[in-house]
């Protein structure tokens, strides 16, 4: 038996292919949306993986350091090192900010870390690690900085000594790794004018500038000009130790919040990017409905254009299922072309998105099945119209 659908497609292939390309672009957008969500999840996973931590110790009753602000003293890590099961503990400071490069703003996450400790960049793709206590930076390649380039961060210039890759915040902002002391200064210290102003205020405050208490004002002013806070302490537990058990001890005895990797992943994925995920899901639903409407409209109009031929086919004895099969195959063919085009363009344009777009084969497979189901569903309108054609209409018209 002849494949009627194939012959019909070949007969008007130009219109069919152009329609498929149009549908494909829509499918490409849909796949990209899914890829953006996957990229956000992957960014979150990369953030956790690259930190090298088993536990995140943060201010009590906060979801810090990524989802909420958290501020703890920078000497707490010493007491954490004395806790059972803790192998390593290191301070980290995080600050999302904008730096300029070539006159353009680059949004980055500034990470203050201690060299050789959890929180340092996992690997370098060029250059060397930070070896000095100040004014050296390792940048993610996505920032666009090159080795040796000078980066202005607040009051100081930093030299890019190393480049790393896939070190991004949960929001997809590339990271700049600087020594912890520098990050603390950037994060907590005020500018000179503010410091002078603050000193004047303190000096004018009789509570702080008491006669007969020498050294009090100086001590207060010194505390205002230095910072001993960090956002979190990253903890690595000893081999064989259950991170949850270590976390429970920290919560119980140190009055801090401690999150395991699973809990932090839940915070990042289920809470921090949950709204974005719902937003993307909404887009996916709308795009699916639009795709279905387009396929239904195209197949329906193609079928209406063949009503006379369908009446003749029915009159000369063609089975309903042959006619329904022809329409269904055309809808699926349209879906197939659309999917191939959509997958191709999504792959081609993914690198140009400002945020990471992760196109997973599993998503592509699921997308293919969904496209085919949508096309099959969309063809029902046209099939219904074709099956309602009266073969008698071919006679005596």
């Amino acid at each position, binding site marked *: *038996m*002849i494949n*009627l659908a194939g*012959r*019909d497609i*070949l*007969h*008007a292939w130009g219109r069919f292919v152009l329609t498929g390309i149009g549908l494909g672009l829509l499918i490409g957008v849909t796949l990209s949306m899914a890829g953006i969500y996957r990229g956000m999840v992957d960014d979150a996973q990369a953030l956790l993986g690259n930190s090298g931590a088993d536990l995140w110790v943060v201010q009590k009753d906060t979801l810090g350091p990524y989802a909420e602000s958290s501020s703890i003293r920078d000497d707490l890590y010493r007491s954490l090192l004395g806790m059972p099961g803790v192998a390593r503990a290191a301070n980290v400071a995080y600050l999302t900010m904008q730096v300029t490069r070539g006159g353009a703003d680059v949004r980055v996450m500034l990470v203050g870390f201690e060299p050789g400790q959890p929180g340092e960049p996992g690997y370098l793709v060029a250059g060397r690690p930070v070896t000095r206590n100040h004014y050296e930076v390792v940048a993610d390649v996505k920032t666009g900085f090159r080795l040796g380039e000078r980066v202005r961060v607040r009051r100081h210039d930093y030299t890019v000594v190393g480049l790393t890759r896939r070190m991004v915040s949960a929001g997809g902002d590339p990271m700049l790794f600087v020594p912890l002391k520098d990050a603390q200064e950037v994060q907590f210290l005020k500018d000179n004018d503010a410091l002078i102003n603050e000193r004047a205020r303190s000096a004018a405050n009789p509570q702080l500038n008491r006669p007969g208490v020498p050294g009090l004002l100086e001590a207060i002013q010194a505390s205002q000009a230095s910072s001993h806070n960090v956002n979190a302490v990253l903890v690595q537990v000893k081999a064989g130790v259950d991170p949850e058990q270590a976390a429970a001890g920290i919560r119980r005895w140190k009055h801090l919040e401690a999150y395991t990797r699973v809990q932090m992943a839940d915070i990042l994925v289920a809470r921090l990017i949950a709204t974005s995920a719902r937003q993307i899901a909404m887009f996916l639903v709308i795009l699916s409905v639009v795709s279905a409407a387009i396929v239904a409209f195209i197949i329906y109009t193609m079928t209406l254009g063949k009503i*006379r*031929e369908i009446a*003749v*086919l*029915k*009159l*000369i*004895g*063609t*089975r309903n299922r*042959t006619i329904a099969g022809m329409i269904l195959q055309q809808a699926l063919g349209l879906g197939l072309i659309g999917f191939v085009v959509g997958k191709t363009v999504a792959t081609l344009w993914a690198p140009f998105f400002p945020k990471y777009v992760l196109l997973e084969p599993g998503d592509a497979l699921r997308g293919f099945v969904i496209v085919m189901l949508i096309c099959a569903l969309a063809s029902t309108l046209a099939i219904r119209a074709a099956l309602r054609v*009266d*073969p*008698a209409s*071919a*006679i*005596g*018209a």
Partner: protein
Amino acid sequence: MSETGIRIEGLKKRYGHGEAAVDALKDVNMTVAPGEVVGLIGPSGSGKSTLLKCLGAVIEPTAGRMWLGDELIFDDGWKTSDLRALRRDRIGFVFQAPYLIPFLDVTDNVALLPMLAGQPNAVARRRAAELLAALDVGHRAAARPSALSGGEQQRVAIARALANQPPVILADEPTAPLDSERALGVMRILNDMARQYRTAVIVVTHDEKIIPTFRRIYHIRDGQTFEEAGEGRAL
């Protein structure tokens, strides 16, 4: 070989019910022998189309009897439940316009019917090639219908109607869009094919150009048929 191509006795068709009922066919009697071409003539609203649809098994008559060859196919009800197969295998259709399938080439337009009947593609195409050659359009076998002239398309349509060797062909105004020469050409072909393949052909028409070519004519008026001898002018 049966001496009856198609026979109809007391065929009636009523549309609607009660006071709104319309008797489109009241008492239709007709016999067409194998190899014979008869005309069916009548004014608009006389019941031509209804009769054609009843003969074509696309609507069900209200009463009467119909035979195709020796087989009683209708006796106050269809004798078979598969009317689609009946139409496919036992009835050929030729329309006013050829209504060829535009996305199939000429050969496959003709071969489609045998293929639908379950014949292998090669066998169906061989049969199509024979018919196209017999109808003098074999040289256009690979062409699309849109590349054919009106006369060629109509000949392909006749070949399609003959593809499953049906005992009867129903031709609905097959010469309406054609000039005299082409119209007579189509009638010549129908007569030749009817004789060659022993097919009964009923031509519904009010084309004055071809009416003199019929040896027998059925007039239909107010749902009833009246037979008269035609001129039987040589083609």
